[in-house]
């Protein structure tokens, strides 16, 4: 067993600066092909093991604080890593390692090879996402959100006019959200005279600041009704980009909402307003699911599913409690793993059959049963089926709603799991259908897929399912350093 004393002091900067330095190197040496291929994968495999001692330290000793440059708040900027941050960092590193492996595996196929610009932006984005998970300063978060948005937009571009339009729309939404968030930062400073989340928690914020910060982050997280940019952008992006965007980028904003509402905003809205917020969240779940059920393209089904799945975050303020916190935290984690697996598997399907219309998937399980299995396993977690992690998250949320006496949310969460099952099954059903004639069976291009391109989503899906069995360990970790604790 690794002793926690090795870290975590230097693990935190490493998580941010290693990817960012990698981005710089890739940018300086665009023609060095082996480097372009290997660096993202190697960095992923290097940073992933750091999560173990970090998680261990947080679980045992509680949250870790690092004052950048030795200056503590309010003067300096602090990084703060509690259990939730560890979970998000773990998600970031896992998906980053898988995507790195996927890009590595796709490299020999010219059509799937990423450009130097793509690699640079991905590494930059990754470092910023890690920093977002740790930052405890409102303005620092603003700057990081901008980096994430720009990086994300670049990742979307690259596939013809559709992707350009989607990327432009994404950019406009993202910048609008950033500026509304920045307004919130200014208002918060006017209220409390500090930007540190730790100090803000004691000072209390006025309703305008809370509203602006929430609204800005809702833009970024693509929560209904501010989701308009997401489906086109995530569906049009290249495979690896879709996985990163849906699993990590919107997740970072959702994570910030969770963090702000549990530590900083608690008590600033009336219960009726909190219920209204939950209604918005669950309407998004319903809307996204129904849209996912109506899409004819595989990637759009998955993209709308992201709109749906993030809505659960807005239940937390209404249900406020340790179980809800654990539930939403695990939900974010399991959704990230499952969604990345689904996008990578869907990308493989598209490479193999050059098409992603559901109608044309018939007979797919003859050629791509592995990818279909991955999709099914990840979808199972998404729909909250036991024993996957999504199931445990759903269980905790239902239980939290029952305990809070808000049984209507218990019913809504249980029912929305059915909708998720519906759109996952719809895809599987299309793939299990017998093609009308042999000529219509999908053409074999499965040989275009290297083992790493299948292994990456397979490991992610396996993690999404297996984490359900680790709930006894993840639940307490999510609570470590948080404001919540479970009654004995």
């Amino acid at each position, binding site marked *: 067993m690794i002793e926690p004393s090795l870290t975590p002091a230097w693990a935190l900067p490493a998580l941010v600066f290693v990817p960012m330095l990698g981005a710089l190197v890739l940018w300086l040496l665009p023609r060095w092909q082996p480097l372009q291929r290997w660096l993202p994968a190697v960095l992923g495999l290097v940073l992933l093991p750091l999560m173990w001692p970090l998680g261990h330290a947080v679980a045992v000793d509680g949250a870790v604080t690092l004052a950048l440059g030795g200056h503590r708040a309010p003067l300096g900027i602090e990084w703060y890593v509690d259990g939730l941050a560890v979970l998000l960092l773990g998600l970031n590193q896992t998906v980053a390692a898988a995507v790195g492996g996927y890009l590595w595996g796709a490299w020999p196929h010219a059509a799937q090879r990423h450009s130097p610009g793509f690699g640079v932006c991905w590494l930059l984005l990754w470092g910023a996402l890690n920093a977002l998970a740790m930052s405890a300063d409102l303005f620092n978060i603003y700057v990081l959100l901008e980096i994430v948005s720009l990086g994300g937009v670049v990742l979307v571009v690259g596939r013809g006019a559709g992707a350009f339009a989607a990327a432009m729309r994404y950019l406009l939404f993202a910048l609008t959200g950033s500026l509304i968030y920045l307004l919130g930062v200014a208002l918060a400073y006017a209220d409390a005279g500090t930007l540190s989340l730790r100090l803000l928690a004691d000072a209390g914020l006025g309703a305008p600041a809370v509203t602006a910060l929430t609204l800005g982050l809702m833009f970024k997280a693509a929560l209904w009704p501010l989701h308009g940019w997401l489906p086109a952008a995530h569906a049009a992006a290249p495979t690896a980009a879709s996985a990163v965007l849906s699993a990590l980028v919107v997740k970072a904003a959702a994570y910030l909402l969770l963090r702000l509402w549990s530590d900083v905003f608690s008590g600033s809205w009336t219960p009726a307003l909190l219920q209204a917020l939950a209604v918005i969240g669950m309407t998004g779940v319903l809307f996204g699911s129904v849209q996912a059920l109506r899409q004819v393209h595989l990637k759009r089904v998955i993209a709308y599913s992201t709109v749906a799945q993030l809505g659960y975050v807005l239940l937390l303020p209404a249900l406020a409690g340790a179980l809800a916190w654990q539930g939403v935290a695990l939900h974010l984690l399991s959704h990230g793993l499952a969604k990345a697996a689904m996008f990578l598997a869907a990308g493989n399907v598209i490479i193999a059959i050059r098409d992603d219309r559901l109608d044309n998937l018939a007979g797919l399980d003859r050629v791509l049963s592995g990818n279909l299995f991955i999709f099914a396993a990840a979808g199972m977690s998404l729909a909250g089926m036991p024993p996957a992690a999504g199931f*445990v998250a759903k269980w905790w949320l239902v239980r939290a709603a029952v305990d809070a006496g808000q049984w209507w949310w218990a019913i809504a969460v249980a029912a929305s799991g059915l909708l998720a099952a519906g759109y996952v099954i719809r895809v599987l*059903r299309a793939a299990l259908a017998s093609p009308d004639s042999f000529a219509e069976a999908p053409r074999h291009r499965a040989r275009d897929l290297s083992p790493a391109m299948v292994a990456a989503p397979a490991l992610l899906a396996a993690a999404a399912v297996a984490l359900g069995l680790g709930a*006894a360990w993840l639940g307490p970790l999510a609570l470590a350093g948080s404001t919540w604790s479970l009654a004995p």
Partner: protein
Amino acid sequence: MTAYAALPLWLVLTSLVAAALIFALGEARRRARTVVNLGAAALKLVLVGVILDGVAAGHLFSVRLPLMPGFDLVLRADALTMLLSTLSAVLWLITTVYAIGYLEHSPHRCRFFGFFSLCVAATTGVAVAGNLFTFFVFYELLTLATWPLVVHRGTAAALAAGDVYLRYTLGGGALLLLGVVGLHAVAGPGDFTAGGFVPVDAAPAWLLTLLFLVMFVGMGVKAAVVPMHGWLPRAMVAPAPVSALLHAVAVVKAGAFGIVRLTYDVYGLSLVAALGVGLAVAAVAALTILYGSLRALTATDLKQRLAWSTVSQVSYILLGVGLGNPLASVGGLVHLVHQGLMKITLFFCAGAFAEVAGVKRVDELDGMGRRMPLTMAAFTVAALGMIGLPPLAGFVSKWYLGLGGLAAGQPWVVAVLVASTLLNAAYFLPMLRRAWFNSDGGAVEVREAPLALLAPTLIAAALALGAGLLAAMPWSPLQWVTLIAERVYLLAPPS
């Protein structure tokens, strides 16, 4: 935790590992797949034998794996567990043989046998679940594992049936989730305990009743209780071994078994009686028995008729449980086994008729007695057992149910049983008459099913016959069920 006490875990793992191996082997490795299939089934049978012996001797089998704070995955074996897991282990072996023969030349065999094993793993999990939480986990897994089997053929009709199946069962699962969480919130975590673990004063009576009904509906979907039965006749598009499995062992039995657990080991008979929900269960069961039989009468497709018969017959189990009386319990629980043996025989026969002679409709059965005499003999034994002809298995069940109804002061039960028996006769006897006494006009040529189909059919029929004829012998289903009833009622006599 000794390895011996952990045997229930191994019981689940045998099928789970088999499923994983089969998926890993892929489509082409036919021989290896057969070895895994039969090896795992045989191993499971041995394990069942060992546990059966231990449970009879009063040994405790229990494994507890912490899954999340406050929730343990509890796997254990008690007498009730063994009723279902023995049935599923025995029928898994013979159904596997049948399925290997049945699907000899069709595509997707890897997928089929993988999910088939997964399905058995889930059923075993339902049987060995030691608390509601564990039960729910395997109950949902069963839904997922059976769906690929229902849509196996990939035709439009199969896909549509799969949709209906999922709509019903996932909906039921969501209700069950709400009920289980709700009960957990009012009564805390509790393992299945003879006599129940829910205190009478855990919550207001209306809330306890509501939670019971929500869970009853959630499980009743799988047990195909009217009006939640709609998926079952539709699911008939699946291949015959799947129908056999769905009807005799896996899905409907998981639902019925869950209701048995809910009544005996969660609420307990005294609380169920106090809330008055036991009679409600019995009444719904009686309605289902009659409705299913009536619909079977008008069905012209052979498998459809058998499906409606299942709707009717499974509710015998619930009738016995709902009456809350030792004799009725014996009748209901023993029917869990008897119906399984008889129904699987009937479906094996129906599959053989369709495969060998192309006979799918009831009116095509003319002369089948001469064309496929052995298969038809098996069909006849099972059909007569279903009707309840003494001393066959169905009669034993009905006899105890009737006695229990009278003892419970519910004489209408006897009327329901008589009416159902008449209806059973009305839809089974014409088939037998056609097969044995009508001629289809053509030259009679004896052409039996291949051995892989015929042998399981005959074995199943022999088991069905034996269960009735030898009901008084030790180790018969009846004796085992009597042991269960003694434990339930002696440990926790209803007040």
